[in-house]
């Protein structure tokens, strides 16, 4: 009996991967931010991009340009969340179709685990988090499209 319980427990633990746990946590953080701060529900299908542009967006210009190229070819609605109005970024975003730009100038997203000094991209499909990643040139190198 003990052996069977222990074995089941081990199987359960091994089935629940850390990356799945992280994805679930991230999805909940994002849903809570949308619900509590924006008074919105998460889009059923869409791409959400959180850009921590408190300082020096021009330093990461090449990354943003590469991201915008990937997003231009995607038909899903896109939501950009920026920490402040930034002409460099807004000019790039303006070239992307089907998008909305929101601002979090009070940096409330940090209370929801959405600002650990890294830009984030979320892909939502059928109300589920299909993919998410930290935005960097290295991560973009491995992507042919956001989907």
């Amino acid at each position, binding site marked *: 009996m*003990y*052996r069977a319980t*222990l074995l089941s427990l081990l199987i359960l633990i091994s089935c629940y991967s850390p990356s799945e746990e992280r994805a679930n946590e991230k999805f909940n*953080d994002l849903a809570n931010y949308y619900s509590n701060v924006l008074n919105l529900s998460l889009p059923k299908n869409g791409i959400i991009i959180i850009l921590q542009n408190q300082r020096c967006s021009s330093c990461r210009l090449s990354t943003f340009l590469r991201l915008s190229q990937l997003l231009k070819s995607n038909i899903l609605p896109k939501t950009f969340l920026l920490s402040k109005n930034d002409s460099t970024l807004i000019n790039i975003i303006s070239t992307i179709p089907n998008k909305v730009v929101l601002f979090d100038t009070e940096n409330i997203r*940090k*209370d*929801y*685990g959405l600002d*650990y*000094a*890294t830009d*984030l991209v979320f892909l939502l499909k059928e109300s589920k988090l299909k993919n998410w990643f*930290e935005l*960097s040139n*290295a991560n973009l190198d491995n992507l042919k499209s956001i989907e």
Partner: protein
Amino acid sequence: MKIISIILISLILIISCNVINDKTKRAAKQLQLMEKEIKFPCLKKIQIYSYFEQHGIEYFCYKIKDWIYCMNLKTKIVEDSINIIFEKGEKEKYGEVTSFCFSGSDSIFLLMDKAIFFVENKIRKKVIPINELDSSQFTSFRFANLENAPIYYDNKMKEIIGQVYCSTCFQSQKSFYKQKIVGSISIETGKVKLYNMSYPDIYVMQYYGFANHVYIDNYCNNTYLSFPCDPNIFILNRYSNKYEIIPAKSIFQNNAARPLDTVFANSREEKMKHMVTVPYYTELRYDKNREVIYRFYLKELNIKTSSGKYNSFDNKQLILLVLNKNNEVVGEYPLDKYYNNYISFVGKDGLYINYFSKERFDTGKIVFKILTFN
């Protein structure tokens, strides 16, 4: 029954791995903290600064854009300013100034990404190429101030002391932590020398993500080092090239710092979260007048508050440890969140710590608390 015993033994082993073997010496009586405050005009945010004393007069100097200003700590008057741009295109050629130090009021040393400047009476007297501009010496390492290791001028040896890091290693590799991390550059010959000091063993054995900063202070022939996840302080005697390990664990540290899995080496978010949660030792300052070491410590923290909000690095409780000349901890003092240990230095009156207050923004003044211990 056997299985339960195995589980219990495993649990005990896991728990015991997290307990720190504490050899810290503690004095029987805690010293009493006394505090006063000074304010002086400063309109801009300071990041790079230095302190020096000449003929009994103390100066706090700080860099704003391309100028270094020196303020008399007693009169609170800026007595001198130095333009640190000496030629057109200098920043492109040598990079930004990341640290500076004085040798008397007339001589200043500037550390840049690719050179050290020696400036006397506001005239640049010498340029010592370093790093990319001297690839014969700087083959696989760089001499740099990675934020917490300001340069120091060793007047006796005529050398600039500073931090060294491996420029050909990934920070998740053991080789990064095996690199010698303290170096000197001769002002006369430009020759670089590395000392027998690497990261502590725990950094070679385990990965600690962003919690791998090297905090350095210097006085005479000694270099004092502290690392975020190691409770010990390291004192390197550069003349004998030997170091001493001083146990200096805070009584507020309950658990050893948790290492980070190297699968997160490319995740800025996981490294930031790790930094927020682990017990974290930061700056240390040597007080030559009182022969004590001040050491700052940031307590471990849950990733979320009781209300479910995420914590940030700023939410970590700051503790100040004081060690006497016998390496005994003679006091530990929790400080409120307005103390900015990043800008702190030792003067004749005690330990100066920048203090954030609304007033600074209202009136363009910078505030320092001066702490002494009796």
